[in-house]
């Protein structure tokens, strides 16, 4: 067994620097790498390019990095929940590249899988495709989208082991598996780090080969963005 376990979030984040490009798993606030984000806030490194479906909310998730003006550029598909983000974007302080959600997932997956680029129909004929190569296949038009290049991927899983194997829970899975192995270094934080051998190999979502560093997060707030319930009849 090749050991990927590190003892702290500080050790997990060794090597992060100003002006790097990071991938962050999560959909809204679900399945975000809370401990890694908190440590990046502490380190206060600047000039970051962040690839993440969303930008957190004003006081949680990636919103914390935005609040400290650590982010130079965001690459996201939907950023509607963050007022500070909108302010920085409209004032020109923050560079924002909005791309279709499926394209974001596939540009991560392409990096993970060794494809330099992919063709997708999403965005053809819109401003998203401006300046990009397009090509017709079987009478339909497609846009060439390049694999992402990132220095670190910060992902969050439910359970993991020292071999780096990961299991996700519910819709907290989202972009996390697609980002594993898609950056030079993948840092996985888990709610529960279990002994090697405790996870059934049949149930592993991401094999440890895609993960360089793994640690158990000290705590998880797991904030709910939209609490919707129904009445008991």
């Amino acid at each position, binding site marked *: 067994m090749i050991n990927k376990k590190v003892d702290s979030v500080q050790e997990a984040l060794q090597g992060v620097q100003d002006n790097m490009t990071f991938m962050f798993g999560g*959909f*809204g*606030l*679900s*399945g975000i790498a809370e401990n890694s984000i908190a440590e990046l806030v502490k380190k206060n490194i600047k000039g970051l390019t962040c690839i993440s*479906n969303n930008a957190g909310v004003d006081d949680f998730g990636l919103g914390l990095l935005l609040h400290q003006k650590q982010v130079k550029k965001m690459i*996201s*598909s*939907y*950023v*509607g*929940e963050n007022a500070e983000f*909108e302010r920085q*974007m*409209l004032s020109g302080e923050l560079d*924002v590249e*909005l*791309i*279709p*959600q*499926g*394209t*974001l*997932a*596939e540009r*991560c*997956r392409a990096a993970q899988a060794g494809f330099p680029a992919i063709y*997708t*129909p*999403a*965005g*053809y*004929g*819109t*401003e*998203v495709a401006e300046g990009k190569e397009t090509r017709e296949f079987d009478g339909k038009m497609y846009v060439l989208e390049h694999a992402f290049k990132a220095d670190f991927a910060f992902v969050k899983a*439910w359970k993991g082991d020292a071999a780096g194997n990961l299991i*996700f*829970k*519910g*819709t*907290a*899975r*989202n*972009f*996390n*598996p*697609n980002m594993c192995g898609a950056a030079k270094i993948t840092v996985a934080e888990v709610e529960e780090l279990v002994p090697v051998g405790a996870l059934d190999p049949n149930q592993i*979502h991401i094999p440890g080969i895609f993960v360089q560093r793994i640690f158990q997060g000290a705590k998880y707030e*797991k*904030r*709910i*963005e*939209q*609490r*919707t*319930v*129904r*009445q*008991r009849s």
Partner: protein
Amino acid sequence: MLDKTGIAKRIAKEVQDGYYVNLGIGIPTLVANYVRDDIEVEFQSENGVLGMGPFPFEGEEDADIINAGKQTITTLPGASFFDSAMSFSMIRGKHVDLTILGAMEVSENGDIANWKIPGKMVKGMGGAMDLVASAENIIVAMMHTNRAGESKLLKNCSLPLTGVGCVKKIVTNLAVLEVTAKGFKLLERAPGVSVEEIQKATEGTLIVDGEVPEMSL
């Protein structure tokens, strides 16, 4: 004239047995409440769940189980979770049978705009561009006019596009319309709404072919 619930009820009649359906945020989300209960339908949410159920009972919310609107949800027996790339494989690969989404503008050739108002509102397209680029069966749910009273059914969209030539059917508070090669074909009128009122609220070409029936809900 229909309210938002009425629009959702009318669209629910388009959902057929055995359909996998993706519902957008807003009016489309309401459609799930009105689908006939004698048919089998599975709802997909692009953040990674198939077999979405109703909202949880109070106290049973789980931060790890949400829909694309970030709302807490439940799952039904037979449900599955998956990653974002697989979710969009379902969408891009045309495995989803019906897509229902909202719009700010639709043009008479089926272009749709729903993600950006330059200089004012930039929230992003989320999964909408992937959905409209691949889905063969797209229904738009929206009000016929905007808050200023201007038509949302246009000759050409004025806002940045989400997709081109993709919308097939539109259900508004006033009418059911089909996008054809010649323009918006009026299929049904909302209860109590005249053809003249629909004509007045439609900037794009409206095709009225004979007697237009009133919709039943």
